[in-house]
């Protein structure tokens, strides 16, 4: 008997699969998940999310397929918010989407930081390449 809302996923179970059509978003009630992106044969872990975090929210705003997979780390309880019902509630109370926008904004900020960091890591190599006469000088 459970005191936790949502659905239980066991360790390693896929909650969302990259490439599948999505018609709902999810809120983690307890436990952790990892967000995975497959590119060819390589799989990258984009993020680890915990209790209170959302995922799959892009499905609310786009008609694209899922951009990443989400896998349970240990036991995780996840609550589903169906797109159709949830969008209707957002139309009645647009303030309901504030938290989701806030979280998406935080993710864009993190992404920007990650981009800058990866740019800085690439910088010495780029400079060395230019030094060897392979780069184009302004």
């Amino acid at each position, binding site marked *: 008997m459970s005191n936790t809302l949502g659905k239980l996923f066991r360790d390693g179970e896929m909650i969302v699969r990259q490439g599948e059509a999505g018609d709902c978003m999810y809120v983690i009630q307890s436990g952790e998940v990892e967000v995975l992106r497959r590119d060819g044969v390589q799989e990258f872990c984009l993020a680890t999310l915990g209790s209170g975090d959302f995922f799959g929210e892009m499905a609310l705003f786009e008609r694209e397929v899922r951009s990443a997979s989400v896998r349970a780390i240990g036991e995780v309880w996840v609550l589903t918010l169906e797109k159709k019902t949830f969008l209707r509630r957002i139309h009645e109370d647009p*303030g309901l989407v504030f938290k989701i926008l806030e979280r998406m904004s935080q993710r864009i900020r993190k992404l920007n930081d990650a981009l800058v960091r990866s740019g800085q890591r690439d910088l010495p190599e780029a400079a060395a390449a230019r030094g060897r006469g392979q780069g184009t000088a302004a």
Partner: protein
Amino acid sequence: MDKQSSGPKLVDGSRVAVMGGGPAGSFFSYFLLQMAERIGLDVQLDIYDPKDFACSGPKGCNMCGGIISESLVQNLAAEGINLPSTVMQRALDSYFLHMDVGDVRIETPLQEMRIGAVHRGAGPRGSVAKPESSFDGYLQQLAVERGARAVRTKVEAVAWDQGRPQVTVTGGTATTYDLLAVAVGVNSPSLKLFEAMGLPYRPPRSTKTYICEYYLGREVIARYLGSSMHVFLLNIPNLEFAALVPKGEYVTFCMLGHEIDKAMVQAFLNSPEVRRCLPPGWEEPKDFCHCSPRINTDSAVEPFADRLVFVGDCGTTRLYKDGIGAAYRAAKAAARTAVFEGLGRDDFLRFYHPACQMIRADNRIGKLVFAITGLIQRFRFLRRGLWRMVSLEQLKHGSQRRMSTVLWDTFTGSAPYQDVFLRSCHPAFLFRFLWDIILGNLPSGHARRLRRTSL
């Protein structure tokens, strides 16, 4: 062009009082402070409520069935409010419909725990108080974390002080505020304080219900009730709805209808359908936690004035179901009006009243929905048809579950009554129901087999 209000507004340093620390008062406080913070407005807010949610029994309880609907669970999750497992006494994934013609289990559309069963206070009378388990206490704590001040004192008088509401508490201390939100429900004598203020406000009409909690123990609850809410459609006059809700070690009995009395309660408890849900030989204990709170049958007249707004049950709430969800919607609309529009009567009329009107209009359709349910309760041939339709839907996975979803949304309060009504007017629904009424009343072997399978 949008007319800008010239009435009073919240400014930095404004003071807001909230009378009543139940869900409506706490939601109002939480959202007002959240919205004010988002636009950089510094507001002081005091919640007045003498109730101590850390106490078990009536001292800490706001008397209700304690069901958190599917839609409210989802809305709160989207708001970033995830109800903790300490507050959740039982997460529910299905309900059993019990009738004299048979029982049937109806699962949530996504087979997940989507409804919450909670204690409003820290547990029933006689139980060891668990302060962390109180739903009302949890919501109030959220408001306090946002900056609200919880004042555990009774408000003795309310008056006007140069056009502003003034609150006098036990001991005689009077404080003047810029806005007073009243969220005292319909069971509190505090509503009488507003009679002398010369307001056009009239409280909503209400009717008596019956709620009680019996200790059964976790094992018995798991064995007999599981993670389902048990709903009864019984032919007992004046009984609109009755349910058993499992919560931790207790089960809550809720009966809604017109002026429920002792005889009606006994008729319900002794019905074979209820007895089937309880251990054999179960006897009602001599001492148990019970109450007969009143619930709204309509809405208040003009639940607002200059610098004054009534939210929750004392304003407008949903008929019979999802009162906490209605409190959430109305309280948020009132908070939004106060922060972004103004504190004048016209501001509440333009921006808060529509939210109340939406609930009110839906309740009118709700009365029709419950009138139809009442017909099904009265006529056995209709119950047979309903039971057959739901049973077949539950047996066939992947089929369109028209009756199951209509009943689910009616009994759990998960969708507006208008939605429920429109879905039940669909020609395919009506044809199927008529078909199942005919077949369900034929003394055929198929009907008997189906009955055996479902039971």
